[in-house]
């Protein structure tokens, strides 16, 4: 079993470690090719100054990009959602997410990752809209309002310590979306078929049960 972790920016290293802890091989994904996906729509250097399509640099480059094996699942870690959105689109990873979601393979977005996969209106982030939930960024306030709290998760038999860091909130849940955990009446873990979203950071503690629940049964 191989699970990719989007490694543009944020807490990807800790997620990769969480996967390894439960015996799953982790691979860092910085471009579509890292997840076995050739991006047909956005050849990366096509519109960049100094390396027009067909230039020797581009040919040389395209020849060099190796397609790696496609992972069985993918994690989008927490980080800065505006940075992840900007860099993700710059490198064509938005197409990878769409293809992955359609393939039925498991996707798990936490915090910034959930913001990117969901819907909603943001000043600096254009969500991919792959999950029918509206997400509000920094809904609890700034860093001084970050906190840790135990939550009950459907499918786990005892409470789970959830770490909320500049966390978002789900403000609307679509009809096909299942709520699996709440905190103070707000949904914090949801699932739409193969895509799971959490507003908290399950990788921050030593408890690996949520990673196990999501990826252990694939």
């Amino acid at each position, binding site marked *: 079993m191989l699970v990719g972790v989007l490694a543009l920016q944020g807490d*990807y290293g800790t997620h990769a470690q969480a996967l390894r802890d439960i015996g799953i091989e982790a691979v860092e994904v910085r471009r579509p090719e890292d997840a076995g996906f050739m991006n047909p729509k956005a050849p990366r250097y096509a519109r960049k100054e100094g390396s027009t399509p067909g230039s020797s640099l581009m040919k040389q480059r395209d020849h060099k990009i190796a397609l790696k094996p496609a992972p069985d699942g993918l994690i989008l870690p927490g980080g800065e959602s505006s940075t992840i959105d900007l860099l993700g689109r710059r490198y064509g990873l938005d197409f990878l997410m769409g293809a992955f979601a359609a393939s039925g393979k498991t996707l798990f977005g936490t915090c910034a990752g959930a913001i990117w996969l969901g819907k909603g209106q943001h000043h600096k982030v254009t969500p991919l809209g792959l999950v029918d939930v509206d997400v509000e960024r920094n809904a609890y306030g700034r*860093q001084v309002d970050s906190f840790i709290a135990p939550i009950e998760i459907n499918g786990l038999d005892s409470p789970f310590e959830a770490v909320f860091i500049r966390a978002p909130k789900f403000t609307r849940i679509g009809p096909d979306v299942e709520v699996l955990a709440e905190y103070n009446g707000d949904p914090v873990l949801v699932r739409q078929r193969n895509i799971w979203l959490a507003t908290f950071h399950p990788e921050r503690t030593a408890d690996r049960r949520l990673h196990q629940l999501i990826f252990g049964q694939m």
Partner: protein
Amino acid sequence: MTTQNSNGHEKTFEVKVGLADMLRGGVIMDVTNADQAKIAEDAGAASVMALERVPADIRKEGGVARMSRIQVLEEIMKSVEIPVMAKVRIGHFVEAQILEALGVDFIDESEVLTPADEENHIDKHPFKVPFVCGCRNLGEALRRIGEGAAMMRTKGEAGTGNVVEAVRHMRSVQGEMRRIQSMDRTELMKTAKDMGAPYDLVLYVHEHGKLPVPNFAAGGVATPADAAMMMQLGAETVFVGSGIFKAGSDIKVMAERHKVQGALAAAIVRAVTHFNDPDEVLAAQRDQAAVMAGLDVRSMAEEEKLASRGW
């Protein structure tokens, strides 16, 4: 991240280190106004460091460098959605209380400003807001973490555009960690004594081979190549201080200047994201249209060096 602090602030500490970890791989840029903050955010910065003057100007103009004016901080906080950091003087715990009350996301207890206490650094445990501090070596890093810092950065030599000191400090921290990791456990207490570092943190480094908090690079990073080099040396991301907004400062038309600075900022982000990929760093380096003039650290008098502030 289960480091034990004697003061019993473990849970708060985890939340603080949590935000520090969210910034990994994302560039943190010094900005002095809302326009610059927006340029940084649009270029892909993960955070901005708000300050009144960039280190290169502090160095040139002299005088006492203090915490930023509150109005400037408020404007910057309003203008971007990414986390906003701000600097306080070493030991100035009231500047820190003010910034916490204001709601900044991270405080840099920084040698770039004029120290307010030449003996003591701030006791950072009681604060809810996380702190980042500078270090030149492992002992200094562990002392700051012992005081509650949730993120470390190399001091480098800020405002010089010269990466040599940041390299020296990063190599020193990494080298000392490797040395401690390979030690016999019996030798750790003497090492802690010699380094002037808390024993439990020396033990942590021995067992894990890394710091209990992220370690970023700062102080003299001016080009995409500098940034990628610091990443390859083991930095978990980089701060860029004067490097971006001192570049192209001779361009008179503001829109033109901002364009050049935005391109440089984006190029540094690109080099950090793909630091291990020479083709990407090459492309990033090509995107760079301007670079700040640098200072030779060797020709500087010892008292001109900012890195020697704090211990």
